[in-house]
């Protein structure tokens, strides 16, 4: 019985860690001014390098570069590398900047769509039919 309880606890712990990672609770881009970059899994299974320029604590530009994609990322230099994060973590951070609607909203949506997983389409669907 004790073994079963331990096993259950282990399963719950692992599930909690996975859930925490997949929902991106721990991923944040530093608020200091400058370029930051991180890697995620792209929709085509390759690696996607995401960039953002922070100014006054908020992102003001989004960029991306992948195997066959380059969204104005060639001009990005000296970005601080934040390492690899899960697609959902990255998406959850990005979608925080869709609202209020402004210049970077469409860039955030575009970048979200390039990430792997189900979440991008779910977000696009919400945006398309939110007002219905």
């Amino acid at each position, binding site marked *: 019985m004790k073994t079963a309880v331990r096993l259950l606890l282990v399963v719950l712990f692992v599930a909690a860690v996975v859930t925490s990672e997949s929902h991106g609770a721990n991923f944040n881009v530093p608020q200091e001014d400058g370029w930051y970059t991180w890697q995620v899994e*792209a*929709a*085509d299974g390759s690696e996607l390098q995401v960039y953002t320029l922070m100014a006054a604590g908020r992102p003001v530009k989004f960029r991306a570069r*992948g*195997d*066959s*994609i*380059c*969204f*104005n990322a060639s001009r990005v230099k000296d970005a601080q590398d934040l390492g690899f994060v899960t697609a959902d973590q990255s998406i959850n951070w990005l979608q925080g900047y*869709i609202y*209020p*609607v*402004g*210049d970077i*909203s*469409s*860039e955030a*949506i*575009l970048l*979200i*769509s*390039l990430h792997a997983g189900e979440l*991008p*389409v779910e*977000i*696009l*669907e919400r*945006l*398309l*039919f*939110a*007002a*219905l």
Partner: protein
Amino acid sequence: MTIRSKFIFAVIATLATSTSLAQSAVSDVEDPNEVLKIAALEALISAPPDRALPLVIKVLDTNNTNEVKERALFVLSQIDLPEAQTRLLEVARSNDPELSAEAVRMIGIGGNQEALAGLADLYSSGDEEMRSAVLEAYMIAGDADAVYAIATNASNADEFEDAVEMLGVMGANDKLRALSESGAYTESLVMAIAIAGDFETLRGLALDGSDPKVQENAIEALGIIGGSNVDATLMEIYRGAQTEGIREAALDGLLISGHDEGVFELYKESNDVDEKRELLEMLSIMGSDKMMEVIDAALQGGGR
């Protein structure tokens, strides 16, 4: 991923345009929801086709502005699934003039052969705007055969000219040559041959005196092609001109090709005062530096 090389297209279509389009939409469209919808639609190009298709269709079926629906049609054109092409054709055949014409253009962009074949009926039964949209779609898709078929089956001169002009824009030299061999020369056909850059065919028409009107059109149209071969041909035609019409056409051709040195040469060669005056006027119209040489010569009493 089968939405036409998803990421490459995302770069050229979505990445390159969505920011500017969506940003312009931010300034042009007051409704923030609409701005986000347009951005989301464009981003859907990156989604798996089977996931994107029902969403795009739902956008078309629900209460959205035409601007949003037009974007949806574009995304639909990029989805490589039969249902997407079927739906595009349905919209093209609908009674909404704005959306149906846009759907036709999107069929051109999509380039699906079956959908393109479906446009023939729309052309036959459509009004002027629809016929124009169908021609445009064929042009976008590079379907010269379809445009040629329209030209050969044209029921009136306007229809023929529109199709021929499109063939010229498409650079469909073989089709234009085939049309010209049928003997049905029109000014628009000659112009289309020029726009297509078919020097040899045009030169043949320019030197063929069997139909003076066609010949004059061809001589003038040579100027559109331009280049040293054209300039030499026009000079040759001008010097050998037997009629005023041919001479005028050659001069107009030289004007269009911008061959001011040739006009200056003709000016120097001429001993006819009226002709010299006309050539001088032409140099003036062309804004030629050769005018200074003429003025200098006149001031020195050379009179040349």
